[in-house]
């Protein structure tokens, strides 16, 4: 009798141990996924900051040639301010769309000023801006991939049990505005 009692105890302990290890390993995996999401988001923010910093130079250079296009400059300034104040992912997405829209309009204006297009510093800025747009696209894609991976991880069984215990919730993807997924293009 004692022996069977001992065996039962060992089995129970083993089950507890296995569950415990399972919980820890799933928990760690969720944490790692979440960190991946945070890192990708930081990179997205980084690239937006880069564009944010580039815009004043661009506006100044354009103003040098097209001083009276006030409406466009105001639109950019407003959009930029909105981006500076955005906190959550959806707010940022909306503000970014506004900035992109305003930038597109600015670059349309540029089409009317050939001397501006030939200006060396404007060309440099354009390359920088295009490069930044591309970096933003890549950072967004990587962020969305990491969010997708995280969301799938915490929503599938049995990870969902652990996720529920840890209070993990699905995160938002970075949605592109319809039609704004094409970066403002400059043709020479």
């Amino acid at each position, binding site marked *: 009798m004692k022996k069977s009692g001992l065996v039962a105890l*060992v*089995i129970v*302990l*083993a089950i507890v*141990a*296995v569950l415990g*290890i399972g919980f*820890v*390993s799933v928990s*760690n*995996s969720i944490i790692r996924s979440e960190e991946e999401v945070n890192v990708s988001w930081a*990179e997205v923010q980084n*690239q937006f900051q880069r564009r944010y910093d580039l815009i004043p130079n661009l506006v100044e250079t354009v103003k040098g040639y097209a001083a009276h296009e006030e409406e466009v400059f105001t639109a950019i300034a407003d959009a930029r301010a909105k981006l500076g104040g955005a906190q959550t992912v959806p707010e940022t997405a909306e503000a970014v769309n506004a900035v992109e829209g305003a930038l597109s309009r600015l670059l349309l204006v540029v089409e009317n000023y050939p001397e501006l297009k030939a200006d060396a510093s404007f*060309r*440099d*800025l*354009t*390359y*920088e801006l*295009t*490069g*930044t747009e*591309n*970096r*933003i*696209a*890549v*950072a967004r894609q990587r962020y969305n991939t990491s969010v997708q991976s995280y969301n799938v991880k915490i929503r599938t069984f049995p990870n969902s049990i652990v996720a529920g215990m840890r209070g993990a919730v699905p995160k938002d993807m970075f949605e592109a505005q319809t039609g704004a997924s094409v970066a403002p293009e400059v043709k020479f």
Partner: protein
Amino acid sequence: MTRLRRPGTSDGYRRPMHASPARLWAAVVCAFAIVLFCSLWVYGQPKVPTKPVPPRLVNDLAGMLTSAEAQEIEERLLALNEANGVQFAVVTVPDMGGYSIEEYSVELFQKWGIGEAKEDNGLLLLIADEEGRLRFETGYGLEGDLPDAFLGRVIDENLVPHFMEGDPAAGIVEAVNTIALRLAGGEIEPSSKEEKSLSPDELAAIVFFAIVIVYLIVKSSSRKGPSGRPPKSGGGVRRPPSTPGPFMGGGWKGPSGGSSRGSSGGFGGFGGGRSGGGGASGGWK
């Protein structure tokens, strides 16, 4: 008329095929494979060429260069690699299958892992023959030294004019020279070739494996009582699969990064560097 005797049937008749569990399993696997294949296809990643074996920096897949020209460029790129560890790859492709050059170059850069993993000092010059487009894609580590505007100028001044004349090799050589000059003048850290000391990650990995090996040796040499099998409650002896991960990831990348540069007179191979989408694009058509 002979009746087929199938094992496992009570009356000797042939059973319909789909009742067999083996068939069912095969069908499930096939369905899963199809679903998996479809989901991969839906992702829409560009299909890029595979890494060159043996590793090479100049990959003229579109046949735009003569072998002598390709060799000359390869030598210059190797010299650059020897000088400061930068992995500058030049790749020409016949066409990009409808993808934009930005998407294509990011995908190729990632697949090939251009640049060393820790330094991210890779640079890709991608040339698409049919579309007439070319692009520089910089690794994260080179974004400071090779800003987009600079690379844009290299494209406008060094590459496009020669490409328009039909002499791509001259353009590429000029571009390589301009870039090498800039990298030499800039504050590139010399590659840690001379560094023989181990990083903490590598040290920890080595210590860990030493302990495991010693433990296994001790265990196998002292065979008292029931052999080999650890008791169930001793499940704590085995580490959960996730823990060695960070060790191994950090530990093994270091040595592989160092040894790939040890071989002189040839390119050791791409180190798994990453790019963030920085660079500049242009075209000649």
